[in-house]
C-alpha cells in the first residue's frame, strides 16, 4: 500500500513536470508566468535526484555505507572532520555558487528562454550533477586528493600537466572576464562605484574588528559589515544626486580597469586577514541571503516573462554575442549546467568533511542541483524585462550604434520595440545616467531582480535602491572571486616556478610575492584591458573563451571519472560520464573551431583580424589585430590540451578493455566505519 502511494506520488511529479515543460516549450507568441519554469525545474530535479542519482550511486559507484571516509580515518580536527551532511551540503553549495550561473544564463537569454532552460535542466541532471557527485566520491575514496593529483595518478603525467595548465588558464581568463563585468556595471555610475568602493574600507574595518575586538565572531562581524554596506548603498544615492560628489566617483571603463588591476594586486599582496578574508565572509553573507531572497521573491510574486521562448537570434546573429545556439548557448551558460571549476571544490575541502560515503550523493549531486536552480532564477530575472530593454542594455555600441536614437532604432527594427525616452526614464528610475551598452549581464540581471523585488517591497519608488543592491551584490561577489583567484593564481605560479628556483616557491618571501602577483595580475589585466578597449564590448570575445576554458576543465574531470569507472571493470556503466564527456568535446571543439576560423568577423578571431588588416594601419588597429591573434592562439592551445588528455585517456581505456594494460586503482584501503548504523 505504501509502495503504491509512493509510485502514485512520483507518477504525479513526472506528469506535472512533463506538463510544465510542454507548456514552456509549446507556448509561442504569448507571455508565460515564471512559475512554469520553477515548476518544470523542481519536478525535473526531483525525478533526476530520486531516480538517476540513485542509479549512479547504486550501480555505478556502489556507495558503501560500511566504508570509513577520510574524514573519519584521518580525523585531525583541522582538515579532516566528520561533519553533518546538511552542514557539508551548505558549505559545498556556498563554495560552488559563483557569478557564472548568474551571468551566463542572462547572456544566453538573447536566444529566448527556451534553449537556456532546456540546457540548464538536462545539462545539470545528466552532466554537471553527475560530474560533481562522481569526482567527490572518487576524491573521498582517495583520501581527499585533488583533481590534478587524481588526473596524474589515474590517467598519467600528461593528464596532471593538462589539469594544471587548464586550471591556470581558466583562472586567468575568468578573472579577466569577471573584472570586465564589474567595469561594465560600474562605468559612468557614481552610485555603484561609491558603494563598491566603500566595501573596501568596510572589509578593512571588519578585518580589524574580527582580529582585535571580537576574535572569531565571524557571523556577528558579517552582519555588522552587511549593515554598513546597506548604509553605503543609501549613501551612494546621495553621491549620485550631488554633482560635486558624483564627479569623484564617475569613471570611464579604462580608468575603472586600471583601478581594479591595482586592487587585484593589492589584494594578492596584502595579509589575508586584513582584506581578503573579511571580504570573502561579507560576500558569502550577501550571496546566500540574496539568492534566498530572489527565490522567495520569484515564488511570492510569480512574475510574467516578456522575452519570447525563441528569438530571431537563434540564427547566430545575436547582438549580445555572435554565434548559433550550438555550440554557443552551451559555452555561454557553462556553470549553470556543468562547471569544471566544481571539480576543484569536489576534490578540495568537501571530501575531507564527508562523514559517510552515502552522503556524497546529497552533497555532490544535490548541491549542483541547487546551483542549477540559481541559473534558472537568473534566466527568469533576465526574461522578466521587456526584450527591447534587455537588448538595449546588453548590446554593445559597435553593434547597435553609439547614440540612444540609433540603438533604439536598430533594436526596434529587430521586432523588440524600445524608445530612447523610455530607456532614459528607466535609467533615471534606477539612479543611472544611462543603461545603454551595459554589456556583461550584471546590469540586466540587476534590473530584472530590482523589477521583481520592487513589485512587492516598496514599489517603483525604491527601484533604484534594489537595482544598486543587486549591482553591489554582483560586484562584491565578482571582486571576491577576483581577489581570491589572483591569490590562488599567484600560489600556482610560485609552486611551478619554485621547481626552477627554490626561493621563488616560498609563499611568504616578499620579492616572490611581488613578482608572481605582477605576473598573474598582468595576465588577467591584459584580457581586461583588451575587453574594455574592444569596440564590440569585450564580452563577445572573452565570455566564450571563458566558457571554453571552463568546459575544458570539466572535460578533464570527466576523463578522470571515466578512467576510474573503466578501471573498476564497470565498462557498461561508463556512458554515465562518457556521454557528457562526448557532448562537451563536441561543444568545446566546435566552439573553439568557430572562434578561431569562422569567416564571420563577429565570431572568428582570425576573420576579425583580417577585416582590421584591410583598414589603414594605426596603433589601435595593430593592437586589435594582435589581440585577435592572441585570442585565437589561446583558444587553439585549449583545444590541443583537450585533444592531448583525450588521446591519453582513450589509449588507457582501450588498453584496459583489451587487457593490454593493468587497471591500477589508487583507492585508499577499506576500513569499516563507526557510523555504519546511522540512517540515511
Amino acid at each position: 500500500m505504501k509502495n503504491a502511494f509512493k509510485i502514485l506520488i512520483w507518477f504525479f511529479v513526472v506528469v506535472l513536470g512533463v506538463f510544465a515543460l510542454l507548456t514552456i516549450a509549446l507556448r509561442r507568441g504569448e507571455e508565460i508566468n515564471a512559475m512554469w519554469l520553477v515548476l518544470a525545474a523542481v519536478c525535473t530535479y526531483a525525478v533526476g535526484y530520486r531516480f538517476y542519482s540513485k542509479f549512479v550511486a547504486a550501480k555505478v559507484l556502489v556507495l558503501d555505507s560500511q566504508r570509513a571516509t577520510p574524514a573519519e580515518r584521518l580525523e585531525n580536527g583541522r582538515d579532516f572532520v566528520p561533519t553533518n551532511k546538511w552542514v557539508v551540503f551548505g558549505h559545498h553549495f556556498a563554495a560552488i555558487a559563483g557569478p557564472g550561473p548568474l551571468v551566463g544564463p542572462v547572456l544566453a537569454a538573447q536566444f529566448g528562454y527556451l534553449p537556456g532552460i532546456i540546457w540548464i535542466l538536462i545539462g545539470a541532471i545528466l552532466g554537471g550533477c553527475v560530474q560533481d557527485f562522481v569526482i567527490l566520491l572518487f576524491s573521498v575514496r582517495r583520501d581527499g586528493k585533488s583533481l590534478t593529483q587524481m588526473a596524474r595518478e589515474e590517467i598519467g603525467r600528461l593528464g596532471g600537466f593538462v589539469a594544471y595548465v587548464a586550471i591556470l588558464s581558466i583562472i586567468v581568463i575568468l578573472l579577466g572576464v569577471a573584472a570586465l563585468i564589474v567595469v561594465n556595471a560600474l562605468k559612468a555610475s557614481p552610485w555603484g562605484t561609491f558603494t563598491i568602493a566603500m566595501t573596501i574600507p568596510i572589509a578593512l574595518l571588519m578585518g580589524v574588528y574580527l582580529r582585535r575586538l571580537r576574535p572569531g565572531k565571524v557571523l556577528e562581524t558579517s552582519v555588522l559589515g552587511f549593515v554598513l554596506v546597506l548604509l553605503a548603498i543609501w549613501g551612494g544615492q546621495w553621491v549620485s544626486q550631488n554633482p560635486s560628489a558624483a564627479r569623484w566617483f564617475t569613471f570611464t571603463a579604462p580608468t575603472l580597469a586600471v583601478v581594479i588591476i591595482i586592487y587585484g594586486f593589492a589584494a594578492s599582496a596584502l595579509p589575508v586577514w586584513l582584506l581578503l578574508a573579511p571580504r570573502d565572509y561579507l560576500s558569502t553573507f550577501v550571496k546566500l541571503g540574496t539568492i534566498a531572497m530572489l527565490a522567495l521573491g520569484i515564488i511570492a510574486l510569480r512574475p510574467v516573462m516578456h522575452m519570447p521562448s525563441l528569438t530571431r537570434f537563434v540564427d547566430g546573429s545575436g547582438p549580445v554575442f555572435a554565434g548559433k545556439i550550438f555550440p554557443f548557448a552551451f559555452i555561454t551558460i557553462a556553470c549553470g549546467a556543468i562547471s569544471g571549476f566544481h571539480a576543484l571544490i569536489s576534490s578540495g575541502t568537501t571530501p575531507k568533511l564527508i562523514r559517510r560515503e552515502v552522503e556524497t550523493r546529497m552533497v555532490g549531486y544535490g548541491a549542483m542541483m541547487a546551483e542549477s536552480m540559481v541559473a534558472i532564477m537568473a534566466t527568469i530575472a533576465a526574461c522578466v524585462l521587456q526584450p527591447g530593454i534587455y537588448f538595449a542594455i546588453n548590446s554593445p555600441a559597435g553593434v547597435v550604434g553609439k547614440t540612444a536614437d540609433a540603438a533604439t532604432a536598430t533594436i526596434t527594427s529587430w521586432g523588440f520595440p524600445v524608445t530612447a525616452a523610455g530607456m532614459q526614464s528607466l535609467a533615471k528610475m534606477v539612479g543611472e545616467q544611462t543603461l545603454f551598452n551595459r554589456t556583461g549581464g550584471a546590469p540586466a540581471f540587476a534590473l530584472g531582480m530590482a523589477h521583481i523585488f520592487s513589485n512587492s517591497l516598496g514599489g517603483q519608488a525604491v527601484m533604484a535602491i534594489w537595482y544598486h543592491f543587486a549591482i553591489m551584490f554582483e560586484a562584491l561577489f565578482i571582486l571576491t572571486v577576483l581577489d581570491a583567484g589572483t591569490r590562488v593564481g599567484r600560489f600556482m605560479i610560485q609552486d611551478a616556478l619554485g621547481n626552477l628556483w627554490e626561493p621563488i616557491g616560498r609563499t611568504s618571501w616578499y620579492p616572490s610575492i611581488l613578482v608572481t602577483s605582477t605576473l598573474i595580475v598582468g595576465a588577467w589585466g591584459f584580457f581586461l584591458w583588451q575587453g574594455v578597449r574592444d569596440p564590440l564590448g569585450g564580452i563577445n570575445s572573452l565570455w566564450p573563451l571563458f566558457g571554453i576554458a571552463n568546459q575544458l576543465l570539466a572535460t578533464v574531470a570527466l576523463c578522470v571519472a571515466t578512467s576510474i569507472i573503466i578501471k573498476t571493470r564497470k565498462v557498461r556503466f561508463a556512458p554515465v560520464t562518457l556521454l557528457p564527456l562526448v557532448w562537451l568535446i563536441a561543444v568545446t571543439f566546435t566552439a573553439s573551431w568557430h572562434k578561431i576560423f569562422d569567416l564571420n568577423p563577429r565570431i572568428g578571431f582570425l576573420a576579425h583580424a583580417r577585416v582590421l588588416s584591410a583598414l589603414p594601419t594605426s596603433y589601435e588597429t595593430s593592437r586589435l589585430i594582435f589581440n585577435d591573434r592572441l585570442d585565437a592562439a589561446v583558444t587553439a592551445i585549449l583545444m590541443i590540451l583537450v585533444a592531448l588528455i583525450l588521446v591519453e585517456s582513450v589509449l588507457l581505456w582501450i588498453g584496459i578493455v583489451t587487457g593490454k594494460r593493468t587497471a591500477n586503482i589508487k583507492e585508499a584501503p577499506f576500513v569499516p566505519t563507526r557510523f555504519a548504523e546511522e540512517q540515511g
Partner: protein
Amino acid sequence: MTKLRHIMNTLAAVLREVFDESAYARFLARTQAVRSRESYAAFLREIECRKHSTPKCC
C-alpha cells in the same frame, strides 16, 4: 516545534561552518587554547594556506 528548532539548529550549524566559526572552535579544542586575539591570529595563520589556496568558484 521540535522539528522547527532542529531546522534552525542545523541552519545555524551550516552558517557557523561556512563562516569558519566551527573551525575556530575546533582549533581551540585541539590546541587547548582560549578565545583570544593571539589564538585567533594563530588560527588565521593555520587556515590561510588551506582556505586561500583554493580558487573561488565561478
